């Protein structure tokens, strides 16, 4: 089994970890967005609260959720260790730098990723932690469900505060830059680069990097503008 350790400590092995965990998180974002769009439904939170109940109680979804936490941590940990190693491998910087042929995002993936990690901590602390580990949230009853926690009201309270809305918008902008480079980069690392399909991967990646963060950003803006008394 020595070969597995050799593989995952090699440069390409580490890059593969970044690529696969990144692609998993790309899929997660789609599912997360579809679920969250129920917040826009004008039903006093029934759809969203029962959805949140299902997400936290279905055993299969719980397993995937733990996998998801693990992949976020792995992606962050390997990413930061690669960035630190690369900084050392570059050594001294140039007095004059000329880099107008490369994108800003591609050279700042570690910075963008660290900001996203900080955003995830704020985001989970505000909703997930308060729902799972405190009694701050009220209870609601819906037909066909036991008493469920009222996450919907927590969300609308949070998004009535301007500073939280601003934090979320900045978070989504950072995510957009990270995806702008990360999406196509994940395929290149897997060895998938061919003139037949790479142009398509690149355009889908750019569309994804704009549309998904935009979809998330709509929610706090909507709440701040239309749901704040």
């Amino acid at each position: 089994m020595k070969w597995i350790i050799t593989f995952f400590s090699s440069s390409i092995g580490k890059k593969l970890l970044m690529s696969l965990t990144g692609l998993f998180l790309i899929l997660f974002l789609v599912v997360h967005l579809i679920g969250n769009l129920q917040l826009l439904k004008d039903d006093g939170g029934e759809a969203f609260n029962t959805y949140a109940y299902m997400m936290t109680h279905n055993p299969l979804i719980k397993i995937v959720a733990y996998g998801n936490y693990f992949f976020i941590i792995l992606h962050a940990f390997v990413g930061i260790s690669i960035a630190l190693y690369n900084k050392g491998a570059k050594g001294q910087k140039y007095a004059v730098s000329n880099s107008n042929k490369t994108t800003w995002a591609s050279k700042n993936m570690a910075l963008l990723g660290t900001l996203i990690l900080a955003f995830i901590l704020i985001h989970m602390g505000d909703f997930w932690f308060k729902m799972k580990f405190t009694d701050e949230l009220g209870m609601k009853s819906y037909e066909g469900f036991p008493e469920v926690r009222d996450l919907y009201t927590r969300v609308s309270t949070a998004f009535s505060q301007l500073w939280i809305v601003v934090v979320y918008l900045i978070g989504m902008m950072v995510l957009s830059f990270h995806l702008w480079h990360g999406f196509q980069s994940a395929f290149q690392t897997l060895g998938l680069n061919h003139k037949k399909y790479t142009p398509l991967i690149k355009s889908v990646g750019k569309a994804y990097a704009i549309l998904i963060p935009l979809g998330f950003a709509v929610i706090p803006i909507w709440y701040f503008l239309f749901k704040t008394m």
Partner: protein
Amino acid sequence: MSADMNLKIKVWRQKNNKASGSFETYPVVANEHMSFLEMLDVLNEGLINQKKEPIAFEHDCREGICGTCSMVINGQPHGPSSGTTTCQLHMRHFKDGDIIVVEPYRASAFPVLKDLAVDRSAFDRIIQAGGYISVNAGQAPDGNAIPIEKGRAGQSFEAAACIGCGACVAACPNGSAMLFTSAKIAHLGHLPQGEVESNKRPQAMVAQMDKEGFGMCSNIGACEAECPKEIKLENIAFMNRSYLKAVFSGEEV
């Protein structure tokens, strides 16, 4: 008519591998038809006449095929023209009165030996790790005895254009040698002659590349933009899949 140009060259001076270096600025009168290296020759000529130490820089063929002339000019390896080496860069690309900043390649795996000369022997060791290919010795084989699809021959030939100059490492913000290593893996990897060792070669060369302390590619593309032989990022993808295939289907190396 060829016009003389009054330039200031701000160049990195470093006595040896141990010393810490600094920039020195020298005036030089160059001719627009000179190559960049000829301009440095004129500058060194002047320094020698003043009994000063000339600037150490590497050069050999001076026609863009040996890959020796390593230096970073105004923040770009091999200077501002794309697809050319320093020796193919002409002074007409600069303007009279310009201050030109010349630095050695920067990467921990390429330590500075003196002034602009860096130690690129790490590349030799990566090539050596690649080992041999199994071909029959003896008489020269007939041309076209081994059929090769034209497209594959083209891909191989494009990868083989790599002159091992190290501009990719110099340009990379991560100090990664993946464009170089991938070009060397791809040039035999695309061909039937390289088939026999196709599981051994990528593993051995990637292991050596990592051992030399080069950084990890994050697909920025600065290498491709600066490569004087225009080696493509497709080669890195080819290396990645050759390596993955070798690790998961080949023998342990």
